[in-house]
C-alpha cells in the first residue's frame, strides 16, 4: 500500500521542484491527494512537459507543402503521393536499456510502433540509432547483447522489418547507452487519426493489455540522472509483450477501417495519466475516468498506481457511442481487453474515481498549460581547437586494418543479421545495401528511403556543427539512393540541462539542426528529447554523454526501380565528387 502524507518532501521525491510544488498548491487551492500529486509529477516531468527544451524546439522548421502533420501529434505525417502518407517518429529508451537491456530496448520499439499505428498507419519499417560504452567496459557486452536481442525480439515478432540503423561506441556511454528507435508507417491521407478528444458524453475506451504495477514513475525516472545505485532499486522496467502488440496493431487497424474512432492515443510513458490528459486538453473537453473498469492484472491496485502504471501494449480512445459494440466485437475477436473506462465532459477537469471515491479532480487547463517552462541558462560553448593531424603512427595498410577492426569501423552484420529485414516482402535495400534503406510502398511503384545518423564527436567539438552535420548526412544518404528527401524526425540525447555547458550544447545543436533543415527545405515533423543522460560516480563526479542529436529522415523515390545501392557494378568508372 502506498500511504504517504502529501507534502513538499514527498513532492520532491516525486521529482517536483519546490516552486513547482507551490504552483500545484496554487492551482489546486488545497493539498493535493497522492493521486493528484502523481499526476502533476508525471505531467510536469521533463519527459512529458519538455520544460527545458520547449522554447528551443519551437525554433525548428516544421512546415513544407508536403507536411500534413508536424510536431504535436503522436508522429509526423507527410504526403508521399498517390493519396498516401508516411507517418514516422523516433523515440528513446535510454535509461531502461542500461538496467535491463533486453526489455528496455524491446519496450522502446513497442512504444514507437504504437506512436505510429495510433495514427492509423501500418508500420512498414523500423530503424534505430544505438550508442554503447567502450567495448572493453564491463557492462558493454551485456548491454549490446541485450539491446540487439530486444530490438530484434520485438520487431521480428511484430512482423515489421528492421531495415536500418547505426551503432557507435564511446566510453561516455559506459553506463548510459542510447537506444533510439524509429518507425515508419504507411497510411491513407484521408484516414489519419489524431488524439484530440471530441464530443461531450462520448465514451472513453481502454483497449489492449491489462494494467499492472509496471514501471510506476518510469517517466520521472527517465528524466532523473543516473547514480550508481539505480540498478539495484526495485525495477521500474516493463516487460514487453510483442504478441499482444501485434494483436493490438491488427485490431486497431481493423477498427480504424470503420467510422467508430473519434480520437486515439497510445498509453506510453506515464500511461493513463498522460493519454487521458493529452486527449482531453487537446480537445478542450473534460474527462471523467472510473478506474473500477480498468482491466487489472494485479490485485488491490490503488488509483495512484493505475494512473501512473506504464504497462505496455495499451491504448485509450474516444468512440462514437453508437459504435462501441462494433468496436468491442473487433477487440474480442483479437482476444484483447476492451473496457469503457470513462466519458468526456464539459467540466474542463480530469476527474478520477475509484471504488466510489474521487481520487483526483484537477483543472486540465492549468495542468497542461501551466506546466513549467524553463529558459535555462547557458554559458558560451568553448569550441574545441581543431586537431592537427598526427604523424602517421603506422603504415597505411596497418592503419586500415586498425580502423576496420575497431568498434566503430567494424562490420555491423552481426547486429543486423539478428533483425528480420525482409518480412513484409517490400524491402528493396536492406542494411548494408545502400546509404539509406529502401522499402517499396505496397501496391505502387514508389519507394521510401530512410536512414538515421549522428556523429557525437562532432557535436562534442562543436554542437552547432554537430546538429547541422547530422541533418546533412541524413540528407546525403537519402539523396545517394536516388530518393528525394522529404522530412526528418529527431531524437535529442543530451546530459543535464541544469548544467549551463550542457544546455549550451543543446541550444547550439537545435540551432544547427534548424539552420540545416531550413537550408535544405527539410522540415522536422516529429521528435523526442532525452535529457539527463549522465552517470554519477561513487565519488560524486559526473560523466556526461557525448551529445547525440540523432536525426532520422525519410525520402521518396517515384520509381523504386531506380534505387541505387552501394555495390560497385561489374564495370564502369569510379568518380569522386566534391573536395577532399
Amino acid at each position, binding site marked *: 500500500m502506498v500511504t504517504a502524507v502529501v507534502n513538499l518532501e514527498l513532492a520532491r521525491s516525486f521529482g517536483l521542484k519546490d516552486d513547482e510544488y507551490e504552483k500545484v498548491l496554487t492551482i489546486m487551492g488545497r493539498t493535493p491527494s497522492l493521486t493528484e500529486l502523481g499526476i502533476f509529477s508525471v505531467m510536469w516531468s521533463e519527459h512529458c512537459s519538455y520544460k527545458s527544451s520547449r522554447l528551443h524546439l519551437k525554433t525548428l522548421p516544421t512546415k513544407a507543402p508536403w507536411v500534413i502533420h508536424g510536431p504535436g501529434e503522436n508522429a509526423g505525417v507527410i504526403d508521399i503521393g498517390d493519396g498516401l502518407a508516411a507517418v514516422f517518429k523516433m523515440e528513446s529508451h535510454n535509461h531502461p536499456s542500461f538496467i535491463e537491456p533486453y526489455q528496455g530496448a524491446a519496450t522502446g520499439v513497442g512504444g514507437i510502433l504504437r506512436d505510429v499505428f495510433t495514427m492509423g498507419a501500418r508500420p512498414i519499417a523500423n530503424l534505430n540509432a544505438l550508442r554503447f560504452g567502450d567495448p572493453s567496459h564491463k557492462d558493454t557486452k551485456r548491454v549490446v547483447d541485450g539491446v540487439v*536481442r530486444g530490438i*530484434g*525480439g520485438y520487431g*521480428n*515478432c*511484430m*512482423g515489421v522489418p528492421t531495415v536500418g540503423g547505426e551503432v557507435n561506441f564511446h566510453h561516455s556511454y559506459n553506463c548510459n547507452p542510447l537506444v533510439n528507435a524509429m518507425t515508419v508507417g504507411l497510411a491513407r491521407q484521408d484516414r489519419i487519426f489524431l488524439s484530440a478528444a471530441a464530443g461531450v458524453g462520448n465514451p472513453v475506451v481502454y483497449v489492449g493489455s491489462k494494467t499492472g504495477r509496471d514501471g510506476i514513475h518510469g517517466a520521472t525516472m527517465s528524466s532523473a540522472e543516473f547514480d550508481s545505485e539505480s540498478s539495484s532499486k526495485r525495477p521500474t522496467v516493463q516487460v514487453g*509483450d*510483442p*504478441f*499482444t502488440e*501485434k*494483436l493490438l496493431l491488427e485490431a486497431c487497424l481493423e477498427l480504424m477501417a470503420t467510422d467508430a474512432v473519434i480520437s486515439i492515443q497510445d498509453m506510453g510513458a506515464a500511461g493513463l495519466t498522460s493519454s487521458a490528459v493529452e486527449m482531453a486538453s487537446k480537445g478542450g473537453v473534460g474527462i471523467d475516468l472510473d478506474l473500477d473498469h480498468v482491466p487489472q492484472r494485479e490485485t488491490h491496485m490503488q488509483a495512484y498506481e493505475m494512473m501512473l502504471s506504464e504497462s505496455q501494449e495499451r491504448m485509450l480512445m474516444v468512440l462514437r457511442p453508437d459504435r462501441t459494440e462494433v468496436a468491442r466485437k473487433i477487440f474480442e475477436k*483479437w*482476444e484483447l481487453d476492451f473496457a469503457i473506462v470513462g466519458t468526456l465532459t464539459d467540466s474542463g477537469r480530469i476527474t478520477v474515481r475509484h471504488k466510489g471515491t474521487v481520487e483526483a479532480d484537477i483543472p486540465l487547463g492549468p495542468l497542461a498549460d501551466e506546466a513549467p517552462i524553463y529558459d535555462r541558462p547557458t554559458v558560451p560553448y568553448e569550441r574545441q581547437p581543431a586537431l592537427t593531424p598526427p604523424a602517421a603512427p603506422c603504415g597505411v595498410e596497418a592503419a586500415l586494418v586498425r580502423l576496420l577492426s575497431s568498434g566503430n569501423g567494424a562490420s555491423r552484420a552481426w547486429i*543486423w*543479421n*539478428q*533483425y*528480420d*529485414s*525482409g*518480412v*513484409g*516482402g*517490400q*524491402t*528493396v535495400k*536492406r542494411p548494408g545495401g545502400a546509404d539509406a534503406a529502401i522499402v*517499396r510502398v*505496397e501496391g505502387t511503384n514508389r519507394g521510401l528511403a530512410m536512414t538515421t545518423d549522428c556523429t557525437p564527436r562532432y557535436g562534442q567539438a562543436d554542437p552547432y556543427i554537430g546538429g547541422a552535420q547530422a541533418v546533412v548526412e541524413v540528407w546525403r544518404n537519402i539523396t545517394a539512393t536516388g530518393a528525394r528527401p522529404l522530412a526528418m524526425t529527431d531524437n535529442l540525447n543530451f546530459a543535464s540541462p541544469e548544467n549551463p555547458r550542457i544546455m549550451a550544447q543543446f541550444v547550439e545543436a537545435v540551432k544547427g539542426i534548424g539552420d540545416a533543415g531550413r537550408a535544405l527545405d527539410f522540415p522536422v515533423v516529429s521528435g523526442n528529447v532525452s535529457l539527463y543522460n549522465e552517470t554519477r560516480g561513487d565519488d560524486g563526479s559526473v560523466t556526461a554523454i557525448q551529445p547525440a542529436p540523432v536525426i532520422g529522415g525519410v525520402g521518396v523515390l517515384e520509381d*523504386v*526501380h531506380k534505387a541505387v545501392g552501394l555495390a560497385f557494378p561489374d564495370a564502369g568508372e569510379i568518380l569522386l565528387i566534391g573536395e577532399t
Partner: protein
Amino acid sequence: MKIGIVVFPGTNRERDMAQAFQVASGKAPQMLWHQQDNVDGFDLIILPGGFSFGDYLRSGAMAAHSPIMRAVRQFAEKGGYVLGVCNGFQLLTEAQMLPGALLRNAGMRFLSQDCHLKVEGRDSIFTAGWERGAVFRAPLAHGDGNYTAAPEVLDQLEGEGRVAFRYCDAAGQVKHHDAHVNMNGSARSIAGVLSENRRVCGLMPHPENLTEDILGGTDGLPLFNGILEGLG
C-alpha cells in the same frame, strides 16, 4: 484452383506469401482465420511464417491446437496439399503432421540472412519447379530452426526421398558442421521435409521473399511455379 493462407494471431508473413502467388499467377490466395473449422473446396492450404501466439510456449505449439488445424489435418489425410513455411513448418511438426521438431538455433540467436538450399525431394509439387540437385538462394529469418528427429526417423526420411531441401553453400556443398552453411545446426542439414504421401511439405527459409528482381532476385519463384503447375 483454390489456395488458402491461414492467419493465426501473431502470423506475420501471410501477405508476403500472398504477394508471391500474385507474382507467380496473377492471383492472390484467400486468407483464412484460425477460428474457421472447415477448409472444404481448397486445393492447397498454406501455413505462413510469423510468431503464432507469440511462439511463447514452443514455436507453433499453440497454433497446432487451433480449430482450423483439425480441418487441415483431415484435409491432408484425404490427400490435400499443405505447405508450411517457417512458423508453418514448426506448426506442422507440433501437429505431428510432419516428423521431428525444430529446436532453438544452435547459436542461440535469431538468424536473418540468406542461405542456400539444395533441392533433394522427389515426386512432389513443392520441389518440382527445380531440377533435382539444383541449388538456390533463400532468405531465412527464425530463432527456432534447428531440425531434429530420432536417428531412425532421419534414416527413413532420407531413404524415402522425403528430405525436400538441405542447407548447402553456394556451390551446393552440404556441410553439416559448418555454421556458415548449416546455420541453425539442423540434423543432417535438413531445411525442409515431406510427408509420406509427399503432399505436406514444411521448410524453414522463405522462398516467398525472393520472387522479384527488385526485392533481390527470383530464386524462390520455382517453388510457386512448381506448385501452380502441379495443382493444374
